[in-house]
Each structure stands twice: as structure tokens, then as C-alpha cells.
């Protein structure tokens, strides 16, 4: 067990320093690159917070869809191959729900401000 502060807290402290103290002192070029870098730190923090639970439910859904369990990467590759081959389609029970849930989980990490995500996430019960 590692000590505190946690990775998320450390990332938040670094992002705070970069955004609120360093950013105002920089040229336009470096200010832009730093803003993007802060966005990357925020993304990493969201991934640390959200990935374990999202991966666990994704594996559960994939296990049901494919009829066996396995590592997430392998299951995902198998699903992709079965969609490419036409074996699984949007008519397959559970496929559309799975793809929606997986996509929303990605957006919650990658880009929670994206307009289509904000719309679709509010539909989720």
C-alpha cells in the first residue's frame, strides 16, 4: 500500500500549479501547449478514477455477449472480429447496449464536455 497524497491528488496539485501560476507567464505558443498538457493531466486523472469500474462492467457485458470470459483486450478484439464478419449485428440482443455503454465510458474519460456525450449521458438512467 502506497502513501498519500494519492496519484489523483498529486495530478490535481500539478495541474493547479501549471494552470494558475505558470500559464499566465508564458508566450502564446507555450501557453497553448501548456493548456493542452493540463487537459492531458485532467484526462489521466479521470482515467485513474473511472477505468477500474468501467473495465469490470465492460468485461461482464463482453462475457455475456461472447459466451466466455477472458482478458479485456482479447474479448474486445473478438467482438470487433465478429462484427466485421457479420456474425454479430445491431439486431443481436445486447450488442447496441454494450457499444453505447462502452462508448459513454470512453467519453467520460476522454472528453466529458463533448456535446453529444452531454446529451447522451443525461439519457442514461
Amino acid at each position, binding site marked *: 500500500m502506497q502513501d498519500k497524497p494519492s496519484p489523483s491528488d498529486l495530478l490535481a496539485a500539478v495541474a493547479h500549479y501549471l494552470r494558475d501560476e505558470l500559464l499566465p507567464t508564458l508566450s502564446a505558443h507555450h501557453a497553448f501547449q501548456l493548456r*493542452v498538457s493540463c487537459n492531458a493531466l485532467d484526462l489521466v486523472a479521470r482515467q485513474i478514477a473511472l477505468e477500474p469500474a468501467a473495465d469490470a462492467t465492460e468485461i461482464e457485458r463482453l462475457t455475456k455477449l461472447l459466451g466466455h470470459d477472458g482478458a479485456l483486450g482479447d474479448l474486445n*478484439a473478438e467482438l470487433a472480429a465478429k462484427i466485421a464478419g457479420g456474425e454479430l449485428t445491431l439486431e443481436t440482443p445486447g450488442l447496441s447496449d454494450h*457499444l453505447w455503454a462502452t462508448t*459513454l465510458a470512453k467519453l467520460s474519460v476522454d472528453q466529458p*464536455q463533448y456535446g*453529444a*456525450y452531454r446529451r447522451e449521458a443525461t439519457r442514461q438512467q
Partner: protein
Amino acid sequence: MPPEQSSAELSFPDRMLAVVRRFAPDAERLDKVMRLSGGASQETWSLIAVRARGPERMILRRMPAGVPIVEKISLETEAALMQAAEAAGVPSPHVHYVIGPDDGFGRGFFMSHVDGEALGRKIVRDEQFAAIRPQLARRAGEILAAIHAIDPKTLPDLPRITPREEIATMFENYRRWSEPRPVFELAFRWAKERTPPDDATPRLVHGDFRNGNMLVKPDGVSAVLDWELAHIGDPMRDLGWICTAAWRYSVIDKPVGGFGDREDLMAGYEAAGGGRVDPQVLKFWELLGSLRWGVMCIGMGFRAKQSDRPVELSMIGRRTSENEIDLMRLLAPRGA
């Protein structure tokens, strides 16, 4: 003294002035010569030619001599396309002069400066565009009809790209650069089953006609920009690209560029002689647009480590999922 002989001894601004005098002999001097943007190979300059009748702002697009040609179409071809577009009634900067080999100034062209806003997120939100926004989709349709009516035989040679070839290239790049993506597989399968025939009348296709590549003023579209991806192909590609979700700047209920409706785009296109638009074909090209931008995002993420802007490209790579949600909204919409 002929400029060819003197050019090596003159400073860069003096060499630029010598070329400007080829088409503006009364230019006394140049003011505010500023490099606007560009990578290693292509440059964009802003300058003011002080002429007898007053100052005139211009833009120079240029490649220095000796730079290997990497762009899809040459600057000379780009100039020819802008001239053809202007002649066809498309709002366009006026091409003043195409640099020739005798000018000793590399390659490129001078064009007029046109006022207007290019940033899509401002066009969809700023108050000053509130009155014009409802007319922009129809106007975009009219402009595309004018572009597509230009006879390709009057133009320099352009690459021919069929829908089937484009999908094959995109699919190959996706498979090469990415982990397997179930949503992309579903979308590619959908698109492959609905690919329009290659023998649809080939037309001049702008290739990057979207919110962000039009200059907009409070009273209308003042110019169409960025012809670098122009080719001969299926004209519906241009209509689908301006509807592609990535260019809505989060105004997701206005499918045309975040400012308008598909019906207005199609009506403008038809009224200006572009012909009937099949909404199913439009949907195909809109979906292909999300796949195209998605594969571009994947590619940037893939190349990030080798790039001189690794953070920026990595973060564009992580925008691939935006296209997945846009594809899902087209393929499996979840009701109102």
C-alpha cells in the same frame, strides 16, 4: 537590372516587393509583412502593398525554392481552383498573381485579403452572426452547387478518388494504426454495404468544405478557403462533410456546421442547380465523415511520439472516441 540577377543580393522583403511589382507596378513599398502560419514547407504571409491609390492588404501563399513537394495538390493548382471558383460565382479571394520560375521567389501565389471569421466555434455562437446563421446552410448548398458545376476539363489535373477507394484506404489505415474498435468495425461494415457506385458523375470536389474553412461576416459568406484536398469524385462527399458532427462545435442539433438544418442545405443545393439530394446518400457521407475524422484522430495519436508536438497529437488521438459516439448516434440512435 532584371530581378533574376539581383534577387540573390536583395533582402527577403525587397525580393517580395519585386514580385508584387509584377502585378502592381505602382507599389511603392510593403508594410506589415508578417508570417501568419505554416509548417516547414508551406508559408502564409500577410502584407500591405502601398499603392498609388492607397494601401492594399494581401495574402501570399508560398513554398520556398528547393523544398520537396509533399502537398496533395500544388500551389499553382490551388490558385487555378480559386480562380475557377471566383469565375463560377463562389465567394473567393481574388488571385492577383501566380509566382513563375522567372521570379526567383519559390512557388506560390498572391491573393486579396478577405475579411471574415473563420473560427467555427465563434460562427455558431457569437451574437454578431445570430442574424445570418439561419441562412448559412442554404448558402452552403448554393455555394456547393456552384463548385460542383465547374467543368473538370477546364481545370489542371486533379487526383480522382472514388468512394470505394477512399473507404479502402481509411479501413487499411485504421487497421494499421489502432487496436480493434467494435464501433469502427460496425460503421465500416455499414458503409461498405451502402457505398455509392463509382460511376456516379465525377465532379470537382472541394474536399474540406466545412465550418472552419469558410470566412463568414455578419451579412454572409465572404470566402471559401483551403482547396488543398480538392479532387475529382462524388459531389455528395462535400455535402456530407459539412454535416459531419465534428464540425458542429457542440451545437449538436444544428447538423449543418452547427448553424443549420439538412433540409436548408439540400434546398439551397437543388435551387442553385445542384440536383436532388437523396437523404440516405447524405447520411452515408455524413457517417463516412465521422469515420474519416476518426481515422485522422487515430493517425495523429499513432504518430504523436515521433512528432514535435507529442502532447497535442496524443490528445487529438484521444478524441477518436468523439467520433465513436457520433457514429453510434447515426447507427443506433436511442430515441428522442
